[in-house]
């Protein structure tokens, strides 16, 4: 019993610490959210067609999420490597999978905030609409997708944190891994918006895939995080 309470204590300590730092420094709120909003505007410039934009809004939301993911992940680990706090975490002798979960959940929360902004911009800029049933689907989709992204982002972010041009490896490693999330989340979001005639019922299968993805990387990440960041 003691082992479990220790782990959950570490998870919540790390989770609270990450969110408190963000609340204090506001890097994500002041830099990443505006960046994401700007991407949505840029898409409109590039695609230049109201019908097309409304049709592909789901995909654009998740593309913007993934591009912003790199920045948020690197920030998440910059706070650890800045003053060698990561070393102190390793010496603390705590279960590193608990550190993984704490950081992943904090990352997920930030991604949810990001997606709220992106979805709002889609409503404003691309004129998408959503029904009541669609909202339920949308909320579930966002929760499951961001959880999965939080897990993989923390895992590969830990590996590429720190020295010597490792950060440039993050997109190369992360993009193939998040492809299933991009595909599934986009389809589910399109179903919620009714884009191209998709029915909301079609979206739930995709949410199922998102849940499997999150479960796989939640477990896999917990196991792999410790060995990956150790020397």
């Amino acid at each position, binding site marked *: 019993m003691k082992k479990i309470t220790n782990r959950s204590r570490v998870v919540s300590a790390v989770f609270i610490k990450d969110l408190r730092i963000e609340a204090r420094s506001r890097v994500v709120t002041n830099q990443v959210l505006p960046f994401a909003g700007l991407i949505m505007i840029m898409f409109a410039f590039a695609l230049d067609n109201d019908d097309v934009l409304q049709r592909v809004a789901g995909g654009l939301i998740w593309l913007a999420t993934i591009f912003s993911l790199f920045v948020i992940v690197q920030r998440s680990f910059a706070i650890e490597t800045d003053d060698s706090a990561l070393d102190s975490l390793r010496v603390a002798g705590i279960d590193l999978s608990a550190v993984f979960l704490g950081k992943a959940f904090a990352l997920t929360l930030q991604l949810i905030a990001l997606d709220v902004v992106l979805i709002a911009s889609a409503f404003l800029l691309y004129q998408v609409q959503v029904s009541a049933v669609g909202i339920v689907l949308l909320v579930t989709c966002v929760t499951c997708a961001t959880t999965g992204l939080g897990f993989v982002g923390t*895992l590969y972010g830990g590996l590429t944190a720190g*020295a010597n041009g490792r950060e440039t490896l993050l997109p190369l*490693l992360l*993009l193939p891994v998040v492809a299933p999330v991009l595909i599934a989340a986009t389809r589910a979001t399109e179903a919620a918006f009714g884009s191209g005639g998709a029915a909301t019922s079609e979206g739930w299968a995709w949410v199922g*895939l998102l849940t499997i993805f999150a479960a796989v*990387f939640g477990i896999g990440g917990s196991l792999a995080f410790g060995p*990956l960041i150790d020397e």
Partner: protein
Amino acid sequence: MSQTSTQTPQKVSNTGTQATRVIGALAILVTIWVVISGLVLTPADVVQGESVRIMYVHVPSAWIAYVAFIVTAITSAFYIFSKRHSLGFDRVAGASAEVGVIFMAITLITGSLWGRLTWGEFWQWDPRLTTTAFLFVTYVGYLAVRRLDGSIEQRAKRSGVIALLAVVEIPLVHFSVVFWRSLHQGATVLNPNGDVKMDDLMLFTLFSGVIGFTLVFIWLVLHRQRTMLLSDLVIERAIDNAILERQNEGVGR
């Protein structure tokens, strides 16, 4: 630390052995047979014409790409989960990944050309081709992780974990793409070899191609993991020398 420092240092001019010579000879013979049969002896396809001959390169390459992936995954698992953590497993994993990446590239290029010749398009979202493209990028990433700085053991542990993660990630990618494409029925039956009616000679040639490419794969991996062993030995030797130097620094002159 190392299982390699028990090797007696000797002058090594090549990494060939009896086994690799036999395998190499067989590989050449089978490949020559496949070339002759594929280009000359087998008939052209009723629908596709001569362009069907790309199949004899494309299909075996795809096969090897996946075999290489599985070999890397299994040897990585052996390295991580076995008690001895024998570095030989890691070397085979790395060699298999390097060779596999080449065959993945060949699969993608030949697949693209075949599609172009048959259907007029360089790329289609065929699930198998798309998954191979993801496999390719994932393994380029794996090889990049192997080149991060650190000790040989660190390299083995890190890339081993990445390889095992790839094992779960690739099926997820594949299923996503399959479900995705199933939404678009009709015009996208893009597997050119789905339509080919194969007679016995064509089947036999295809089969020979698979055998031949497998022999080439084994030959390349054997040589590559030996050169890896040699370069690891060089590093070890350099460290040994550095240790002696450092100890002598202190002893004073």
